[in-house]
């Protein structure tokens, strides 16, 4: 119960344990623990990592919090302290509200669909490939595609002239106009984001499935005739730690890591397109030069995500069984 989901899900995965074995083959015998004569030496080794964390995480965070209380002159001539005005502006703006609504909708759709489809594929693949490593590697390699590339490929699918998905929609009598029609764009964003995330979920679900002991499955085979019952009563609960971990990761993905996809799809398009809060932070800050307002939005975002994560851990993790 006290273990983090990472620590408990990862060692189970067949794939991950192999990675781990590969990794630990390079590490010297753990029994021979290195002892440092001087207490400063270990800190010296930690320094690069600490520097990275401080420079790229803490420092910008502090900057964001500070600048969220100022209005910056668009031409760079100093800044004025405005207290919480940036926050009230953001929170009362109707545009912000509609972006927040879309972000929530987007998160639910992307997380739900990519988890659902990932699980479905993993269950089907698990039936076929118990142990066939090459097959698994092929399925997994899709994940190596970088998000902007995924966005570009996705854009091609949805292209108004050559996109096969546009053609498909046309076949069913719908004129799909991504980048122009609000809901068509939303559909494209969700589709590409889900498509990009499925392999990741698939890998984890698959290794989670493969770590369910064969004999437990066989015992279930004797106890219950219906495959659906066995899945719900035995497989799914044993998969819960993996699912919980993926839920956290997927929500974070939908909130933040979809940025490049959104960028590729809506950049240089007419204004009325669905975007997420993160993209709005970028638009307002870098395109609109409203550093103060965009900082306030990013602070709000940080708070929301922190709250969400705490909630997940408090309420969901308790229900999750860690074998």
């Amino acid at each position, binding site marked *: 119960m006290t273990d983090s989901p990472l620590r408990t899900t990862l060692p189970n995965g067949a794939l991950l344990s192999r990675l781990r074995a590969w990794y630990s083959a390079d590490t010297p015998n753990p029994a021979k623990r290195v002892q440092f004569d001087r207490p400063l030496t270990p800190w010296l080794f930690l320094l690069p990592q600490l520097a990275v964390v401080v420079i790229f995480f803490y420092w910008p965070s502090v900057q964001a919090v500070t600048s969220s209380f100022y209005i910056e002159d668009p031409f760079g001539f100093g800044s004025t302290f405005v207290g919480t005005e940036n926050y009230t502006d953001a929170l009362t703006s109707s545009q912000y509200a509609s972006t927040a609504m879309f972000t929530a909708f987007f998160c639910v759709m992307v997380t739900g669909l990519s988890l659902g489809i990932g699980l479905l594929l993993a269950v089907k693949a698990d039936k076929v490939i118990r142990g066939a490593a090459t097959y698994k590697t092929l399925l997994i390699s899709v994940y190596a595609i970088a998000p902007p590339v995924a966005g570009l490929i996705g854009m091609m699918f949805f292209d108004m002239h050559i996109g096969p998905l546009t053609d498909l929609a046309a076949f069913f009598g719908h004129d799909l106009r991504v980048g122009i029609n609000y809901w068509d764009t939303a559909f494209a964003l969700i589709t590409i984001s889900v498509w990009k995330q499925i392999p990741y979920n698939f890998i984890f679900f698959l290794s989670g499935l493969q770590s369910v*002991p064969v*004999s*437990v499955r*066989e*015992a*279930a*085979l*004797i*106890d*219950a*005739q*219906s495959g659906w*019952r066995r899945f719900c*009563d*035995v497989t799914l*609960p*044993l998969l*819960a730690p993996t699912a919980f971990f993926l839920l956290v990761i997927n929500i974070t993905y939908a909130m933040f890591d979809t940025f490049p996809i959104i960028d590729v799809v809506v950049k240089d398009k007419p204004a009325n397109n669905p975007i997420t809060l993160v993209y709005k932070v970028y638009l307002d800050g870098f395109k609109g030069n409203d550093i103060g307002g965009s900082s306030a939005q990013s602070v709000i975002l940080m708070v929301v995500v922190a709250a969400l994560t705490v909630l997940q851990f408090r309420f969901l993790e308790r229900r999750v*069984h860690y*074998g």
Partner: protein
Amino acid sequence: MAHLSLRNVGKTYAGGNQPAVCGINIEIADGEFIVLVGPSGCGKSTLLRMVAGLETTTDGEIRIGERVVNTLDPAERDIAMVFQNYALYPHMTVRDNMAYGLKNRGASKATITERVNEASRMLELGPYLDRKPRALSGGQRQRVAMGRAIVRQPAAFLFDEPLSNLDAKLRVSMRMEIRKLQKRLGTTSLYVTHDQLEAMTLADRLVVLNQGKIEQIGAPLEIYRKPASTFVASFIGAPAMSLLDAFIENGAITLEGHVLAQIGNMAGPVTLGLRAEDLRIAKEGLPMMVEHVEELGAQRIVHGTIGAQTLAVIDTGEAAVQGAVRVAIDPDRLHLFDTTTGQRIESKRQTARELAL
């Protein structure tokens, strides 16, 4: 409760060029306790899992009661299985583990409660009913696995080396418990083990398997007294029966030049089987050079050589045994096997007297 019959049952794994088991014929009476025994890889688990429905049957016919079950799902076969690693559902409490199979078969709440309570009383699991398996010791998990089988009241129990993960002492007590339980419930049982002691003590009838084929079927004592082949002879009984190259000439069996007994009209080379417990260190008999002695407390096993051949003798005496000793043989307890086929040869001994050489 039902009888079980395997008729000409065989299995070739996909990709395997040789059957894992073949030509198995066993008729198991209602309530009988059958133990499948044999060395690793001889196909015991395969056979058991075919009865359970966890492996497909590629040849022959398996009946449970009057039903041919070859194509039925495991859940439809009315069997319960106890696995070597227990295979408990880690996310369910002990109670739910036992109830799960009944629940899926649509048993009423009252029936489930009653059977779970009864099983937990029999197995002394009462205090653990609300625990998860991970909070139990190995022995307790083993009991839960038994409980899960018992509550179902199936036509047959199938056990695949259920005790091999327990320590020696617990194994002995669980062994007796399983036997008592099975007697009391009268459920037909098929039990796989490679431990010949377990096999001897549990079985109504033993089935000795070798490379996927039945070597011998019979009551434990019958198999012990009359092993059908050198394979069975060396597998059943501890220490293993010594198998020696001997020769029959003029109706007399000779070992390394020493005449042991008069035997009917046979001639030529023969494999002679001698059980350590049928031999004694004595004043007179075969000369043996002692190699080493295993001290077991109540008795000791003396390993030695006669000529170039090794022999084990059980000695219960007090005196130290070393160097050259003499071994007395009861001529009624000789086992003879064909040197090429390894099959048992029934000898007609003419004179029944202890030979003094």
